[in-house]
């Protein structure tokens, strides 16, 4: 019945009412004479679908049907009630209900507001879903249908290939090489042109060595987060304080955060500074970069019993006594040490910037 538009069908075939095909076989009169279920099956068959088997729903008026109907209606009804409750909670708060705005000490209505929104909206949506599931499972006929799956047709392949190749032949591109080549050239160049504006994103990372420098410089004071300077004796032995360079925005600079550690006497005795950095500390004070040499997290956890500093991100551990050398975990380099001394007023200052790049390793780190 679908042979109308295929080769070999009768060329004198008049198109049907809309698109030929089944309209030739089924006149409007014939269709009008058919029952709805027959039309349904006919259409399905026309789409390659055969309904094999139908488990009927519970018979109309039976107890089973009434029960299922009640269940579905109950689910939808509850969904409606939950949705209404949502609207009441949402709009009613701060109107006839208490204020919804949460104050951290409040454990009343405002602490319940968001959970209630979730409960009511979740309930409404889930009950709609539950009602639909019950409806499909209990009240719809269970139909088992089979649809044919068509493999590709050799006819389609051959004719499409002929159309394509014929068209290509007519353009003459395979023969007229010059057009093809110039078009290829233009295409490549146009492609380049179209992505060229992305060049605006490219910046030179090696100009001025931004990765190798921080805000520290000779004479810059070590200050706390609140800007107060530090003298020797402010800290207990064995303690750690995070310090920043006393410059504008120093306490928010990405790479400048430094740990000022006062060593205990026994730590002091065991101290093995890195080669050439023996004089970087001042008295029993040493200052190491707080930026992990692995992935740049602030290494924060100082266990003074073992003299270890732990990075909470990937658990690299650095030994303060050995010049903040990595002793466990994925970090490969020691935390850089900041050379420190005292200024005229007796406050800690940096003697220079870090002598190496702080933070994570990169390709040309050793070269700058």
């Amino acid at each position, binding site marked *: 019945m679908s042979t109308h538009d295929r080769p070999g069908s009768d060329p004198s075939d008049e198109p049907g009412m809309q698109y030929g095909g089944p309209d030739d076989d089924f006149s409007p009169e014939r269709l009008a004479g058919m029952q709805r279920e027959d039309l349904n099956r006919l259409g399905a068959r026309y789409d390659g679908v055969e309904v094999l088997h139908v488990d009927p729903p519970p018979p109309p008026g039976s107890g089973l049907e009434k029960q299922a109907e009640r269940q579905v209606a109950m689910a939808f009804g509850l969904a409606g009630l939950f949705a209404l409750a949502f609207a009441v909670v949402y709009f009613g708060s701060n109107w006839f209900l208490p204020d919804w705005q949460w104050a951290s000490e409040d454990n009343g209505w405002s602490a319940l507001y968001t959970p209630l929104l979730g409960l009511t909206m979740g309930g409404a949506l889930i009950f709609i879903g*539950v009602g639909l*599931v019950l409806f499909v499972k209990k009240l719809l006929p269970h139909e088992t249908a089979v649809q044919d799956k068509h493999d590709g047709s050799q006819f389609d392949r051959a004719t499409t290939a002929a159309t394509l190749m014929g068209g290509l032949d007519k353009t003459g591109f395979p023969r007229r090489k010059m057009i093809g080549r110039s078009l290829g050239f233009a295409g490549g160049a146009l492609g380049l042109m179209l992505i060229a504006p992305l060049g605006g994103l490219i910046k030179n990372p090696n100009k001025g060595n931004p990765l190798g420098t921080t805000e520290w410089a000779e004479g810059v004071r070590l200050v706390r987060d609140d800007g107060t300077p530090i003298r020797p004796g402010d800290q207990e032995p064995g303690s750690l304080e995070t310090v920043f360079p006393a410059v504008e925005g120093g306490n928010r600079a990405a790479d400048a955060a430094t740990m000022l550690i006062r060593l205990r006497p026994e730590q002091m005795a065991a101290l093995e500074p890195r080669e050439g950095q023996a004089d970087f500390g001042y008295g029993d004070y040493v200052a190491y970069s707080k930026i992990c040499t692995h992935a740049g997290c602030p290494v924060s956890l100082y266990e003074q019993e073992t003299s270890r500093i732990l990075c909470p991100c990937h658990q690299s551990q650095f030994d303060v006594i050995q010049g903040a050398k990595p002793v466990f975990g994925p970090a490969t380099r020691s935390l850089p040490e900041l050379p420190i001394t005292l200024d005229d007023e007796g406050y800690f200052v940096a003697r220079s910037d870090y002598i190496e790049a702080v933070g994570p390793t990169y390709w*040309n780190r050793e070269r700058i």
Partner: protein
Amino acid sequence: MATAVAPGQPATKIGKAATEIDERLIVAGPLRRTLNKVFPDHWSFLLGEIALYSFIILLLSGTYLTFFFDASMAEVPYQGSYAPLRGVEMSQAYESTLSLSFDVRGGLFIRQIHHWAALLFVASIVVHLLRIFFTGAFRKPRETNWGIGVVLLVLALLMGVTGYSMPDDLLSGTGLRIISAILLSIPVIGTWAHWAVFDGDYVGDAIIGRFYIVHVLILPAIILALIAVHLLLLIKQKHTQFPGPGRTEHNVVGNRLFPAFAGKATALFFIVFGLCAALGGLVQINPIWLWGPYNPAQVSAGSQPDWYIGFLDGSTRLMPAWDINLPGDYTIPALFWPTVVVAGAMFTVLALYPQLERKLTGDTASHHLLQRPRDVPVRTSVGAMALAFYCVLWMSGGNDLIADKFDISLNAMTWVGRIGMVIIPPIAYMISYRICLGLQKHDREVLEHGIETGVIRRLPSGEFIEVHQPLGPVDEHGHGQLTYAGAPVPKKMNQVGGARRAVKGFFKPIEQPAQVELEAQQERRGLAAAESDEHVTSGRPSEGGRPSEGGRPQDPRD
């Protein structure tokens, strides 16, 4: 039937309107084909739908959030209603996230829905991918759709990363710092890539705005386009199905789209949405006001990314401290391997798996019938191995928490991960392989000897035997004649109608027990029905398939 109209012309208002529309658009044919499309029925085919629905929820809730979020890194003092942070300097991104959480009516609720839906989105993609993998649904002709699926997974991860970086709280800032370090670790172009992405050194003032546009426009647009292609290919190639009676490589057995499948799919959408809404309201997630604004000098202990990035965090923790120093003072940082290389290799192998399997097995045929994992032990075990590897990495992403809660040395946990990463996957391979073979053998044993009934009989000779229920015709030795066809083999008497069905009704029966009994007799269901029959030894109806099912296609049962 109407009488006053020409034959075939509709008499109702809706019918007339439909005719009017069809005269203009000619949609009746395509619409009927769509409504008649048959979808196979199996719970595991709904996993991809969950991903689709959570994406819709993400689009809806995310659009709402954009009305209030301001992706600016300019510093402002907080003046909003959350007292503990009042007066604190913070970026506008963090300030606006706090304000949409505390000063927008229902804003916190929507933000939490968005976060939960994002977790569900990635989770359902992963579980969907596992279903496709273990049942062989990726085989020809569906390799393209598999590839699109893997790309969608990667994009979903990027969506997650850009999304949770945007609030600019302490936790997301820590994540951003690690992203920066990962970019820097790429050999040769690392610093250039970092400067291109961050518009300079870390942290700069561009990154949140850039992540924002990537998160709300670029990635969603690509994902939406790929989902469209994913679904169009699915419709074009038709759904796969599990083997079963009447199911072949050339048909699809199931429900038509309308009304049964449409009803179920809509129901699932509402349930998924409802679940996200309930979680979003009832279960707090990412309480950014507790973390405080980002500060490069601070970090909270136990910082964990969202679950789907955990495996990369784990691989990074397990990586030994191996920088590679090249001549000319160039360095390949240790961080490069567990992040860029591990992730790149995992997703490349995943995307190419269909081609790899084709090459290795030489199977180039088209397949529309799925395989049970036990029938392809090598693939199943390879999958189990990959999964075990992933799980070791994922667990190691939280090894500090495990060490803390169970009072284990942190360094010991790292070594557990390092060693486990190498030896657990092969063990998983061997165990899965044995399980697959065992299940295969059991299937064949039941086909040959029948189902164990649990009934012990004593023979006149005094010997005790267990009565087995054959599944089909038997030869003169009592051995079953059915061959394994890739479909589930019933292994319990109930699955072949050994028990009659229960009388319906929750508090009180709503059916007549006698009627159910009668039905069972007619359907030859239940042991009583079978034993009243003379086919008691074989227990099967005289012809055709399983009792009570009349040989028609059935859903797989286990």
